[in-house]
């Protein structure tokens, strides 16, 4: 793996050299550049992997971001960045939801089986850090009997696992850096294994850790496209990278992030509040949008399938009960993953994250709504239907004028409850990269490491909005269901 890495570095150097000799006119004649000119590519990335990608004032920034944008500008194409999370970005690439992924990703043999990688653009390595006040652990030898954390599927995890038997410790995998650092600070794990640039950046940002080992020589980071897809994009990336290295832009980018000056003193709670508000408000807007759309569709589904459950047709009752048991019998998270990653792979049709999210929530809430509607209709005294029918009114008229007005009154509190549940469930969509309120909060504390305060603000926003909406709903209920 290391040898391969050196080889590619050599190739890169050669290319850079060639670029330098051939100059701009040669680059302009490059067929890969002609193929990408004017194109727009969707690039997936991690949510937060500072200093490679993170948010500052709501804007995605970092080494990867600067690099991919500068290369795009250099090569005459445009990029649309999707901040999905590392695992999610790789799955999105496999299902062709995105054209390429740049996420501080090490080039490994396994990954090379399913992706095509660019020339390496960064040489990384794993480093270990412990809590700032930990004086006992000064190297791997101090880890005996302890638990360490590493990022799931990362180089750090591979390295930790490779030495865990020798030093007798346990490795726990978590999904993102901020969570890992908090885990160490909270004392749940004694040390973290993470990529050195990330760790160095975090420590520099006063994340409460300190590094205690030298960087292990690691593999290199590459930009990836799906196997056999977008060869012109890959070629353009390589050409652009060589040119940036040549013109010094590449080094400037690295210096910007890795030679970070001492950070400014942390602002107080109200500083955090006002800084984070714009991003959180954007997230809240998406939360409400997804909730509103989902509840409306769920209402239609619930009424439709609810009528199926009380119908005389065995087939319709069967359809409704299959629908309800599927969506009540599987976790919402699995449903979200299925609609966003699984379905596109099965159908070959890509799907955007809002659509996938609303699909998940509305089908899920629709199943609960079906049960609410069924319960509501069945709780109306059968004597009411008999009275209606004995007067000569048809089934539909009896439902509409006699049963439903009473059922709706019974159902309303459950509807309001489901509405609140669905609003809260939108937070689960953060895992597929839907930029709602929780996701925005994660972005913020991943960059500033102020997890507790940020989560308090996020929770308070949910609390306020949910209680306002509940009050409003109850008022409407009282008004119309006297």
């Amino acid at each position, binding site marked *: 793996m290391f040898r391969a890495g050196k080889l590619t570095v050599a190739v890169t150097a050669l290319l850079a050299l060639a670029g330098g000799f051939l100059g701009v006119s040669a680059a302009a004649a490059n067929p890969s550049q002609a193929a990408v000119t004017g194109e727009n590519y969707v690039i997936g990335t991690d949510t937060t992997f500072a200093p490679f990608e993170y948010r500052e004032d709501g804007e995605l920034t970092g080494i990867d971001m600067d690099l991919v944008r500068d290369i795009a500008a250099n090569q005459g194409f445009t990029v649309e960045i999707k901040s999905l999370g590392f695992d999610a970005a790789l799955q999105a690439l496999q299902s062709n939801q995105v054209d390429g992924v740049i996420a501080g990703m090490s080039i490994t043999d396994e990954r090379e089986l399913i992706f095509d990688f660019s020339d390496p653009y960064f040489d990384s390595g794993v480093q270990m850090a412990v809590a700032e006040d930990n004086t006992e652990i000064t190297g791997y030898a101090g880890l005996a009997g302890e638990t360490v954390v590493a990022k799931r599927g990362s180089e750090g995890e591979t390295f930790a696992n490779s030495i865990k038997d020798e030093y007798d410790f346990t490795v726990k995998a978590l999904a993102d850096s901020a969570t890992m650092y908090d885990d160490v600070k909270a004392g749940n794990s004694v040390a973290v294994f993470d990529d050195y640039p990330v760790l160095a950046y975090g420590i520099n940002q006063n994340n409460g850790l300190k590094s205690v080992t030298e960087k292990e020589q690691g593999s290199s980071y590459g930009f990836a496209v799906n196997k056999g897809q977008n060869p012109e994009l890959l070629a353009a990336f390589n050409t652009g990278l060589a040119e940036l290295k040549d013109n010094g832009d590449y080094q400037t980018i690295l210096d910007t992030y890795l030679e970070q000056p001492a950070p400014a003193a942390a602002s107080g709670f109200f500083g955090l509040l006002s800084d984070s508000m714009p991003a959180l408000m954007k997230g809240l807007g998406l939360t409400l949008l997804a909730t509103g759309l989902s509840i409306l569709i769920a209402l239609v589904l619930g009424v439709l399938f609810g009528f199926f459950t009380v119908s005389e047709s065995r087939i319709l009752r069967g359809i409704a009960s299959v629908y309800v048991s599927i969506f009540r019998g599987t976790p919402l998270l699995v449903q979200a993953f299925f609609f966003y990653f699984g379905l596109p792979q099965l159908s070959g049709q890509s799907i955007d994250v809002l659509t996938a999210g609303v699909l998940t929530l509305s089908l899920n809430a629709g199943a609960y709504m079906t049960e609410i509607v069924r319960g509501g209709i069945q709780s109306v*005294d059968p*004597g*009411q239907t*008999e*009275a*209606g*029918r*004995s*007067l*000569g*009114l*048809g089934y539909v*008229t009896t439902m509409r*004028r*006699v049963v439903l*007005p*009473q059922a709706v*009154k019974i159902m309303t509190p459950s509807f309001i409850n489901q509405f609140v549940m669905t609003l809260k469930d939108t937070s689960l969509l953060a895992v597929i990269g839907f930029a709602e309120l929780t996701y925005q909060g994660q972005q913020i504390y991943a960059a500033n490491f102020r997890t507790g305060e940020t989560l308090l603000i996020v929770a308070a926003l949910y609390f306020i909005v949910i209680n306002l909406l509940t009050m409003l709903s109850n008022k409407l209920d009282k008004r119309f269901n006297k």
Partner: protein
Amino acid sequence: MSKISVTGLRKSFGYNEVLKGLDVEITEGEVVCVIGPSGSGKSTLLRCLNKLDELSAGTVIVDGFNLSDKTVDLNEVRQHIGMVFQHFNLFPHMTVLQNIMLAPTELKKESKADARATALKLLDRVGLSDKADARPAQLSGGQKQRVAIARSLAVNPDIMLFDEATSALDPEMVGEVLQVIRDLAAEGMTMIVVTHEMGFAREVADRVIFMADGLIVEEGTPAELFGNPQHERTQDFLSKVL
């Protein structure tokens, strides 16, 4: 002229046969009271006459409509045969007036204004003109049952079925409801009245039917049935309730 003709009527719920072959003939203007012990199938018989329950076997012909005929419009038949329930079954989300006007307006039998006028007339007839805008929850049991009768009459039926219309009432309210039924009898309405009020049956009925175990055991004029019952079951039942 025959208003209701029942032949060989059987009704089972699962394996439980509740009606075991009934024959009943009811002519226009006749008032028939049905008596019998609990569980004998009285309610089930009434519910088969307007097909709230499906028939298992036999034929029922109401006002010339054969209920077993799939082409017969049940909603139309039901407008010929009103039903009053033990527990009133008024629509709680509507006012008294709306309860009465619902069927005539939904069935497009009358314009809203006409339906309203009819409803007010019916309320007057059952003595509840002042309750037009009340909700069912604000009425006493006897008042509720009188509204239910007015509601049935609003679609202008020519047969009325009463299923223990006074059983759920406090004793002091029984009289007001029986009076309304009595008035209907006097106007010549064809009626089948399931009742435990033997005095009422004796006074109003043209004919009394005694049922037990899903069969008609004995029938006759009130004088015959109450004065000189032929069957042991009938004698036994009457000795307990009289």
